[in-house]
């Protein structure tokens, strides 16, 4: 996702698929995440396991680089489902598609379905993220 130009949220419709993004997990990425969230579980300290929320965070970050949200966008809800574990050095590919885009008055309700796979097609993460987006000023221009 991040290698491509940003899409304006107003161009998106249900079914729109963002280009997938791939990256290799490494220990520095995991270490930075664990430090940021102040997580000291021995599960991660003594193994190559990757915290599943680190994968989720990367999926969301890739999405945020791929779409242009207006000022005032609110992240209202989130679903995360940890299907399987990932390890250091796994190559993760994240996917995102628009599940719902509705205009309600001066706002748009946007739901995006998310997933991440390792080893090509082995799903490790699924989720959904929901935003309320205020319309840009030019949305209401005559």
């Amino acid at each position: 996702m991040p290698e491509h130009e940003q899409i304006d949220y107003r161009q998106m419709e249900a079914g729109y698929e963002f280009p997938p993004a791939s990256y290799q997990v490494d220990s520095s990425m995991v270490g930075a995440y664990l430090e940021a969230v102040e997580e000291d579980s021995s599960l991660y300290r003594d193994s190559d396991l990757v915290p599943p929320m680190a994968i989720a965070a990367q999926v969301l970050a890739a999405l945020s680089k791929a779409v242009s949200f207006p000022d005032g966008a609110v992240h209202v809800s989130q679903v995360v489902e940890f299907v399987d574990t990932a390890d250091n050095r796994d190559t993760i590919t994240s996917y995102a598609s628009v599940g719902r885009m509705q205009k309600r008055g001066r706002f748009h309700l946007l739901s995006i379905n998310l997933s991440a796979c390792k080893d090509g097609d082995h799903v490790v993460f699924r989720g959904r993220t929901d935003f309320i987006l205020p319309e840009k000023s030019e949305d209401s221009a005559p």
Partner: protein
Amino acid sequence: MLPELREGVSIPGISKGISQANVNRYAEASGDFNPIHIDEDYARGTPLGGTVAHGMLVLAYVSQMMTAAFGRDWLSGGRLDVRFRAPARPGDTISVSGEITAVDKDEDHSRVRCEVLCQNQNSEPVLTGVAEVKVKAVT
């Protein structure tokens, strides 16, 4: 790990202080550099009146509590469905708590459902939702 799985059991909670440094570190780690999280001048000019933590940072604290309670079962069988009720801001202390509300057992697994809650230091809900985890039966 939890000593027993039954309705009404509290999940040991955790407490996290949020600072701008925490938020900046999370932005670096996640790659989410939205200025509402990290640019204090920008954020002051928005309706939020200042920077706010990433919702995913607060959600990470919930996952941390569930990891401590359920171990590896959480990492490959956990699910969270939450609403962000209010922003968490630098200077806030977030208390994360949970309680088991249902346990469905079958031969190999128990499916455990929990209510989860994050509150700030004023007891205002910041995040509410449901966590579910598939726990392997101990043989």
